[in-house]
Every structure is written in C-alpha cells, then in structure tokens.
C-alpha cells in the first residue's frame, strides 16, 4: 500500500490554496517561455493566476499570449515549441475539442507541450461540471495522459510532465488531467513547488532540432505512403519509452521533494485484495474512504489507481491484477455505442490472452458533475461482491444511476 506520500517533516510547509493556484504556481516554477490562454470554465482560474504572475514579473521572460480561440492556443504553442521554447496552456471540454486537430499535429511533430486539462463534460447538453469525457476522447492523439487524484498531484505532475515530455527519446506532449471543480476549485492544504527543488529536478529545455535561420530545417513535411507508417511507428516507440520514463521521473521527483503519487499505476490495499476497484482521478479519494470501511470490517477490497492512461500500462496492470478475484472499473466517461467507459474496455483488452480469468464489470458514474457519494461506491462494491458470489454477470457494464423521470 503506497499512494500520495508527503514527507511528514514537510507538513509544516503546507498552505491552503485553490487547486488551480497550486497548478499555476507549479507552472511558474517550470520557467515556461510561452503560455497561451483562453477562458473556459472550470479551467480559467489557472490562466488567470498565471497572468498575474507574468504581470508581476514572477516568470522572467515569459510571453503570455491571450489568443482568440483554443485552436490558436495550441497552435501558438506548436510554433513556440518549434523554436525551442518551453510551453504551457490549460483548457477543458469544448476548448479541448476545438484543439483536436492540432493535438494530433503537435504530437506528430514531437513537440513536448504540457497542458493541464481540467476535466469537464462535453456538449450537448452544455454542462460545465466534471466528468472525463473530454480528455478520454483525445485518447488516440499521441499525447501522454496522466490523471491526478488530488490537487497536490495535479500540481506536482506539471513538473514531472515536462521532464517526461522533454526526454529526448520521448519528445511527446503531455496532458495533466485534473477533475473540474472537484480539484480545480477546491481549497486544500498543499505544498507549493519550491523553486530550488524545481530547478534541481527539471533542467532547461534544450531540443536537438529547432527552427533557426542559421541552420535551416523543414518541419511538418508531407509524408507519403512510403514513409508515413514509420512516423506513426516512432511515436508508438516513444510511448513505449515513456512507460519507463513515467516511473523513473516519479522516483526522481520523490528523491528531491519527498512527494510520491505513484508511477504508471498505484495501489491501495491492493496486494491481498479479492475485490479490486479500478479508477482514475478524484473518484479515488472517495473510493479510498469506502475501502477503509470495508477493511475495518476485514473485507479484502482494494484499489488499482491508473495514473497513466496513455501510454496504457498493460504489463503493470496485468501484474497488479494477477491475484484479483473480481475487478470493477468505475469511471466518468462513456464510449457511446459501446455502453461502457474507455478504461473498462482498455482494461479488459489488457487482460485478454493472459491467465487472468477474473470476471470484470464496469460502472459509469458521475457524468456531467453528478455527485458520486460513498454510498454509491458501497452499492457498486456490494453488487460486485454479488457477482463474485453467484458467478453470474447480468450486466457487464452499467450506469450506477439513471433517473426514469428524464427519459
């Protein structure tokens, strides 16, 4: 059992700030050259905080671009990254969707942009509250995606994200995903990133290839059928490298700051668990509380926390679930037409062709910001236990709550 450790001697350094502020502060300590910004709830606080920092000269030399749309927010970072700048933006939902085309482009050109995605539901109906449909829907864009459980992790992941992204064998953009409102707007005690530690952890960005009049290179060439596959293949190879890099960087971060949030995955009462719940993001906090209750009653319930959704840590998941008797994935997104969340689909596919024959079920919860309370998790655990006891699955994937009056 590990998860979200803060060195006890550092507890005195904790301050109570908004999650968005903690992230903005972490961005500052990464010394970005270019930040692009566009407002959208619930992301806006991050770029507002950053604008204040830039206005006060707290991020020396940083150019803050108030773009006219998210499509330009990401595109400006493509340009900035191409000349060797460290870049940052933050967005959510409709803004992320507007970026969609350029997300693939940024990854294809191997620009190590870091972006916080404050997770929010997508329109229609328009809804500003939290679920994770927005970033999940960018799954195949070639971005590394890390999901944070709490505000400390969301902030700490910014620094880690740069280190992963800028590794010369990775060179891929990273999304740090944090749940809208639940993490972005909550005031919680956190340790703000220390500038000295940040500098020790994250070296300046020195890319091998840049646009430079003294040494002209062409970026973004036409790739015809004779070479296109190889470009895509090399992104996949970089994702492979990232699997190890994400683990290593989490360790390095721990060495310097004393804080650790897991590598590709993390476990909570996982080792001896018969019933394993799998999830990502802030749901894990509620789930841990409920699992504590079960453990107090001597029931072997545990949690597998997925931090990295891309690259998807297939090997780590197989190992972590090798002794599970039943698996239940709980998540805030749905692949329409498949009636299950993306994580559930991915998890089952990771276990296919293995010895693991534990039954797996999935629950779709908390769409569009509907509260997920401890009793909901309890209900899900109870239903999961029933499947284990009876050996029969009547519904592989379910919504935990559907109100008849709105149908």
């Amino acid at each position, binding site marked *: 059992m590990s998860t979200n450790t803060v060195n006890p001697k550092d507890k005195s350094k904790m301050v109570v700030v908004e999650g968005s502020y903690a992230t903005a502060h972490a961005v500052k300590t990464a010394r970005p*050259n270019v930040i692009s910004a566009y407002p959208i709830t619930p992301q806006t606080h991050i770029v507002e905080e950053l604008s204040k920092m830039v206005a006060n000269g707290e991020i020396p030399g940083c*150019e803050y671009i108030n773009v*006219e749309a998210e499509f330009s927010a990401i595109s400006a970072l*493509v*340009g900035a990254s191409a*000349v060797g700048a460290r870049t940052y933006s933050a967005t959510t939902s409709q803004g992320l969707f507007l970026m969609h085309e*350029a997300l693939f482009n940024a990854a294809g050109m191997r620009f190590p942009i870091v972006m916080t995605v404050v997770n929010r539901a997508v329109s229609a109906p328009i809804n500003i509250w939290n679920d994770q449909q927005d970033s999940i829907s960018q799954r195949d864009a070639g971005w590394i995606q890390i999901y944070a459980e709490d505000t400390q992790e969301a902030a700490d992941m910014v620094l880690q994200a740069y280190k992963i992204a800028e590794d010369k064998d990775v060179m891929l953009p990273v999304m740090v995903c944090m749940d809208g409102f639940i993490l972005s707007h909550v005031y919680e005690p956190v340790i703000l990133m220390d500038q000295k530690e940040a500098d020790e952890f994250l070296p300046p960005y020195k890319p091998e290839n840049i646009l430079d009049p003294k040494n*002209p290179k062409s970026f973004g060439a*036409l790739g015809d059928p004779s070479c296109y596959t190889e470009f895509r293949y090399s992104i996949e190879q970089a994702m492979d490298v990232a699997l190890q890099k994400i683990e290593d960087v989490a360790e390095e971060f721990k060495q310097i700051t004393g804080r650790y949030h897991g590598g590709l995955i993390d476990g909570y009462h996982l080792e001896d668990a018969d019933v394993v719940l799998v999830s990502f993001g802030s749901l894990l906090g509620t789930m841990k509380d409920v699992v504590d209750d079960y453990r107090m009653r001597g029931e072997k319930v545990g949690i597998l926390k997925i931090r990295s959704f891309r690259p998807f840590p297939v090997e780590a998941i197989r190992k972590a679930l090798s002794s599970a008797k039943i698996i239940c994935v709980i998540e805030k997104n749905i692949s329409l037409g498949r009636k299950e969340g993306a994580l559930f689909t991915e998890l089952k596919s990771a276990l296919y062709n293995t010895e693991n024959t534990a039954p797996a079920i999935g629950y779709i919860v908390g769409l569009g910001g509907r509260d997920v309370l401890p009793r909901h998790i309890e209900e899900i655990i109870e239903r999961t236990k029933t499947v284990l006891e009876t050996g029969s699955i009547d519904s592989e994937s379910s919504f935990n709550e559907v109100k008849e009056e709105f149908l």
Partner: protein
Amino acid sequence: MSERFNLLTPGHSGCAGCCDALAAKYVLMGVGEDVIVVNPTGCLEVMTSPFPNTAWNVPWIHSLFENGGAVASGIEAALKSLGRKGNTKIVGIGGDGSTMDIGIGSLSGAFERGHDILYVCIDNEAYMNTGNQRSSGTPLGASTSTSPPGSVSYGNPTHKKDMTRIMAAHGSPYVATTSIGYANDMIRKVKKAAETVGPTYIHSHAPCPTGWGFDSSKTIEIAKLAVETCLWPLYEMEDGEVTQVRKVKDPKPVEEYLKAQKRFRHLFKMEDGDKEIEKIQKQADRNIEYYGLNK
C-alpha cells in the same frame, strides 16, 4: 540575386507556370535569409516538402491549414522569450483559402495582438490543392469545381472578399497588394513590409494556369491583364491610409482579361452572360474611381 533565388530551390513538384512558386520566390527575395517561414497547407506546402526532400533553404514549418497566424505568433513570442528575436522576421505564406476563409480567425488574432510578423497571401482565387474549389477569393462569375455555371448559375455568385482592407482595419502599420506580374514592385513591397515592425500584410494576386485555364507560358501576361483592367489594383496602405497607388493610364476592358481564361468562358456563351460581364466591369470601374487609378 542568384544566391537569393536559391532560398527556394527548383526541383519542387509545382505545375509548369506555377504562381505559388513564383510568389514564394519573390517573398524570399524581399525578406532575405533571416527568416522563419510558416506555410499553411496548400499547393505550395505540398509541392515543396515531400519527405525526405525539401525545397526550402530557410527554416520552414507547416502545421495545419487554418493556424498559420497562431503558429507565427507562437514563434515570434518564443523568440522574444528566448532572447533570439534579433532581426529575424517570421513570415506566413498562405493561400487564399487558408488566409481568407478557414484561417482568418487565427490571422485576425495574430494581427490584433500586434505580433512582429509578415503575412503574405498568395491568392490564386480558389482551393487549388484540392482541385480548384471556390473560396472567398474567387471572383464574380468564375467557374470552379464547386461554382460551376449551369442553367440557373453564371458561376461564382459573389465578388472577392476585400481581405487587404480587413487586415488594414486591424491597425496594421503596412499592408499592400502585389501581383506576381510585377516582380520588382512585389519584392520592394515585401521588403518594406518585412522592415516594418509589427504585423504587416501583403496580398498577392497569383494566376494559376491549371485552375484558371490558360497556357502555362502566360502566367505573367494574365497577371498583368488583371492589373491593366483594374480588376486588381496595386496599392499600399500605411496606418490605415492609402499612400501609394500604381496608376493605369488607359484601363483595358475587363473582357480582355476574362477572354483569356477558361474559367470565364461561359460568360461569353450564355444568354445574358454579358450582364455578368457588365457587373465585373463595374467592379473595375469602382476600383478606378476609388483608388484614382487613371488619374
């Protein structure tokens, strides 16, 4: 001069008489070597960059079709932050489709924010890379693959969007129209635009033999006819005021220009086609009047 020509090398896959290649060469001749080129998707990008080859001897980036303005903004901001801006000019070179239609928001943002960039629109009056579809740069009456004449149509139903004025309205310190038929004029204006600090804009008329339907040896001739008929006035604007106009002593009738191209051929055959030609002549007359072209 010959060394400067090589900033865009020959051997790309442009059509014979290609307007885009010519225009891009003139742009580089005006700007010089200390440049970073941003080139949105279109004929020029496709024909000059088949991996692993490139025709560009200057740093060059192609990202997407509709984000040239934003990519250029990001480069300029980054160079400033990195302390490497110096005299390096960031130059966007886009087609009429990417500039006037799909990328206008991105370009408008870049100009409104005041980045130190030069943006050149190579206006061949249609989406050529995808096979000559109508854009907002397509002139009245032109037949394109999506604005064909028919029993109830004379071809493209609208006049060209006045993009140069739109860019001037952003508060640009320098905008100018150019034509690939007037190389020296174009190179001079590009140079001036590049030397002006702030967002500057050049809109270059660029006849496309393949799309417009004329012999590839006639690119320059057609370009000159557009200016001589006053359908494409050449002017400069500084801080929103017209400061220079290229005079046309004896404007030629628009028929001379229209007749020389397949895309207008139907106007001479269709019943009431002459009325459409009259409308086009009216546009030329307005230009003569407005810019004082024949005075």
